[in-house]
């Protein structure tokens, strides 16, 4: 059965109603998720509220095939990044147009894509055919409709002439956190005042981990930009939607995505807004795989739906002799 994906992006339909439709569909057609829900006693018939929908561990993308389509092959496969020998998540994207629409609708809402030049300081598609980030860059570069939008060559200085040549539009420079820091170290160019730098995470790679606030300060200094122009993106191979931080403080998801904080000791328990927990996400754009994902990130969700991400959740379990000082 084909799902009419237009309704996912239709903000006139309540999020709860759209969620319910996606849940019913995935329960029917995504076998691992159905088995998971049934084992927890949750079925479309028993579900009284969408808040009772269980979140599926993101690890499942490494262990099983999460998709609703019965087709032998899918047009697009995303894999999480990882070093050799590491198990990688595999996200089979049955309908590329949903991903494309998810990227473009929200990005355009925030950044006026047609008035922007997209510069991506990331490896190209050829080197990373399964990277969702690179695919997103490709989509944005192409959709910008501007021939100056491009992947920048890695480990090369920014070209001031190339930057100056874009003065009629806003430059949006994308890149992984440390990649962008490296770029500030090898380049001595000034980005125009209107430019925006969007870091896509990866603050813990080949160097020490640095807090996001410090990262933004360093990028701000390095690119001679106001801190207001340093933004962040939160996305991953397992999700077909992205959230953006444009105020330096919190990520805001699109209207077809919601984030929740879950009690790390009890994945069935949502925490009240403002409390730190394990992030769980409903991403309706994942309609053909699984939309109800329990991530391995820690963060906090505010009452307005915006959220912060602290990094990977530490399940340094409160067990064994590892009870430190009592928690009052």
């Amino acid at each position, binding site marked *: 059965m084909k799902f009419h994906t237009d309704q996912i992006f239709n903000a006139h339909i309540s999020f709860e109603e759209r969620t319910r439709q996606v849940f019913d569909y995935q329960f029917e057609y995504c076998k691992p*998720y159905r*088995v998971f829900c049934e084992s927890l006693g949750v079925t479309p018939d028993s579900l009284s509220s969408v808040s009772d929908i269980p979140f599926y561990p993101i690890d499942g993308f490494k262990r099983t095939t999460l998709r609703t389509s019965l087709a032998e092959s899918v047009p697009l496969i995303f894999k999480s990044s990882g070093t050799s020998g590491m198990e990688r998540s595999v996200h089979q994207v049955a309908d590329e147009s949903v991903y494309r629409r998810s990227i473009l609708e929200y990005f355009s809402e925030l950044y006026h894509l047609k008035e922007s030049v997209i510069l991506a300081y990331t490896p190209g598609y050829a080197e990373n055919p399964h990277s969702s980030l690179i695919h997103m860059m490709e989509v944005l570069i192409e959709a910008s409709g501007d021939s100056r939008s491009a992947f920048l060559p890695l480990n090369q200085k920014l070209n001031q002439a190339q930057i100056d040549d874009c003065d009629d539009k806003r430059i949006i420079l994308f890149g992984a956190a440390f990649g962008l820091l490296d770029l500030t170290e090898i380049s001595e160019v000034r980005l125009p005042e209107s430019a925006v730098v969007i870091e896509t995470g990866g603050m813990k790679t080949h160097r020490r981990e640095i807090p996001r606030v410090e990262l933004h300060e360093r990028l701000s200094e390095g690119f001679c930009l106001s801190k207001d122009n340093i933004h962040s993106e939160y996305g991953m191979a397992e999700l077909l939607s992205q959230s953006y931080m444009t105020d330096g403080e919190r990520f805001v998801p699109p209207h077809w995505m919601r984030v929740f904080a879950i009690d790390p000791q009890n994945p069935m328990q949502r925490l009240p807004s403002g409390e730190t927990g394990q992030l769980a996400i409903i991403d309706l754009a994942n309609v053909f795989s699984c939309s109800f994902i329990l991530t391995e990130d820690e963060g906090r969700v505010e009452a307005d739906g915006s959220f912060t991400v602290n990094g990977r959740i530490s399940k*340094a379990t409160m067990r*064994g002799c*590892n*009870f430190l*000082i*009592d928690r009052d």
Partner: protein
Amino acid sequence: MGLSALEKRLNYLETSIQMWLSSAELTQAVEKTIESGVDRSDVVFALRQVKEKCTADELEFWLSTSYQDDADLKNVLVLHAGNLPLVGFQDVIAVYLSGAQYRGKISKRDPWLLPSFLTILKRIDKTFKGRWSTDLDMFRDLKADHLMFAGSPDTLPKIEKQLVDKEIIAPDCKKLIRTAKFSITYLGSEPNERFHQLVEAIERYRGEGCRSVKVIVAPFSLYDHSCHLTDYFESYWTETQTNHDPEDATLHRIAYNKSIERPQMRLEHLLIEESEPENFEKDRVYWVNGGFEKISELLDQFGEQIQAVYSFSEALKALNQHLHDVKEAEDIATAQRPPIYWKPDGVDVLEWLTA
């Protein structure tokens, strides 16, 4: 010639333990502990261990092998864990025998058992000036020169800062930090009639001790002997009445495992799953297919998080030959019944205090 200070302490200790085990103070403490949610069977078991392991012979043996010199000038702060009943008993004994000044931050999770013993000890040994409290602030300005506690390297700096800021410990305080979290066992080639020891190693104190088995390495699959194993667990729970309803986290994990077709066994509240160990969560045990090499691999992977490696006696010799100097495997029968002189994280606490 009169008794030495050490001999007096030993006598006082033996007397105190005997009195305590039959005291009204202990009876009250036990009832309160059980009321707070600890299984009666576990409390009784812990006390039985004290009775059986803190004998005169065992204490004298410990002193003869580990006691170096009187530590009477030392001011020792012990931050007691509260995950198991009487988990800090060995530390109290060691500090007392060493002659050092005992200062105990008692866990709010287990605030009755240890104090009931300390009260008796103080009654018997009038010179014992030990102090204890569940309130850390009671130790402000203590400037302890020795600190013992269980923690993780991640949280250590935060705790230390708190202790230094409040001058609870001296800036050059000597620290004994325990970091191990769990134990592993090698099952040998076949199941045997001593599986009840494996069950106790897993389930005693609901698997919350660092000597509790969280990983089983076996050269056969979980499903090969699941019925056999189930019988032993059921028998254990019938005897101890310590079976519980599964927690939501366990049910969630069971559902997930089912969805990815991972071999697993649900036994009341406990889940045993056949997979590489990840997070060591409550009521979850990992079954890993492999031999001695797998044990070495896990020791490499988890390092200081592993408290002990066990096996059944018939495989112990060969396992120890394989492990050589890396770790000495113990008989699984001792998992929850270690001697009073056992070495948490490989450190003899009496030796550490009196060196």
